């Protein structure tokens, strides 16, 4: 039976067999961090509140603090509850990107290509 991942104080979703936890979160448009996706940099680490995961290849090289997991190289082995550092709604594409632009270039960018929704995002 497919496992369920629940984001603490958030919503839940099913996991497809064979996907890493990172892929599962990405498929949900949850902004997750990563660098190596191979278990040696540690940047993807998340807090696991409840449940079990299994590391799929050789044991990861990155240091894993107690209570944390490396989603890039593990798969859920039970239903999970995860706590995100920053509780976020699903990312609206482009929204995150736009926040990296400074005022001047943002103005340029807006005149180049923006949808009304993106305009709302930048002026918020």
């Amino acid at each position, binding site marked *: 039976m497919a496992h369920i991942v629940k984001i603490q104080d958030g919503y839940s979703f099913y996991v497809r067999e064979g996907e890493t936890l990172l892929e599962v979160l990405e498929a949900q448009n949850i902004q997750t961090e990563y*660098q190596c996706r191979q278990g040696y940099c*540690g940047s993807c*680490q998340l807090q696991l509140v409840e449940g079990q995961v299994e590391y799929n290849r050789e044991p990861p090289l990155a240091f894993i603090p107690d209570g944390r997991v490396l989603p890039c190289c593990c798969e859920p082995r039970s239903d999970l509850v995860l706590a995100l550092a920053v509780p976020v709604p699903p990312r609206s594409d482009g929204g995150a990107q736009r926040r990296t632009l400074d005022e001047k270039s943002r103005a340029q960018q807006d005149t180049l290509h923006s949808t009304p929704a993106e305009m709302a995002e930048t002026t918020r």
Partner: protein
Amino acid sequence: MTYTTFNRNLFDGTAEPMFFGQNVNVARYDVQKHAIFEHLIQKQLSFFWRPEEVDLSCDRSDFRNLPEHEQHIFLSNLKYQTLLDSVQGRSPNMALLPIASLAELETWIETWSFSETIHSRSYTHIMRNLVDEPTSVFDDIVNNEAIVSRAAAVTCHYDELITGIQLYQTLGEGRHQLPDKTVTVSLRDLKKKLYLTLVSVNVLEAIRFYVSFACSFAFAERATMEGNAKIIKLIARDEALHLTGTQHMLQLMASGRDDPEMAEIARELKEEARQIFVEAARQEKEWAAYLFRDGSMIGLNREILEQYVEYITCQRMIAVNFEPAFEVKQNPLPWMNSWLNSDHVQVAPQEVEVSSYLVGQVDSDVHHDDFREFTL
């Protein structure tokens, strides 16, 4: 405590602590106290690359076409990276090798530091390609005040530790009269210096370098200076491994599993160590002000880089169990992840699989069946 290059004592190497135990004798890797260092060595070896394999021919004209204030950002960032890797190419060897007591740790330190010399060599490769007169750029690393003040912060812990070890290894513990002053040498004090040095190395590789990567990739994000970004991707892959190595050392110390006295020291120095993170974040923000003093670039400005400094500082503090210094927020540069990821860096065509493990590729088991088709 005099250093010896080949310890004549027969002892169980796996019973030694990481640092300040016996000097290592036989460089053997079949038994390990901390297997993590052996794995890091293997991984680092599998990452081997050479800067000359990356084609930079487009970067020269890209650079000429940058407005002057963006050339300032690019070159200053490159100078800062050059400084950091000049330090890293020698300091782990100078500071840590004389006190390392495990063969696998000793070799990890050498492998780590060697990879830093490749980073330094790539800056020369990049610089040669960009400017006709690299000397003036390199000289500025020693002359420019904004960079020199970085250098002081980056090297002070290393230098203190190195001086302390030299005294310890020549004079031993106790009070000693030197020509110009009296010094007190104590092992506990040296262990404290070691702990703080490792924290500052982690700050250097896991924070300072990542801030500089953000600047490098901000250019590539706009499809300019892309050859440079390819090199930086390879450097970032190495740095990810280095910071993992240092995080392991810090955690092994804090846990007391390696040397109980180190666990005490880690507790005692927690606040001082935390301040190294806080202070580095402040300095990096100051640096951001210098970078963007003549104007922002498309996609990156002073405020956003400062937000990234806070973001990455929090990430790294959490990773070593420190209370984060700033409010934990979302990554302000979400495009960094895909640039930092090196899965698709192609160096030379024959080296497509640069990031894979190279160990165990030769199957040395021979079975009777293998000779089935042989006739004599």
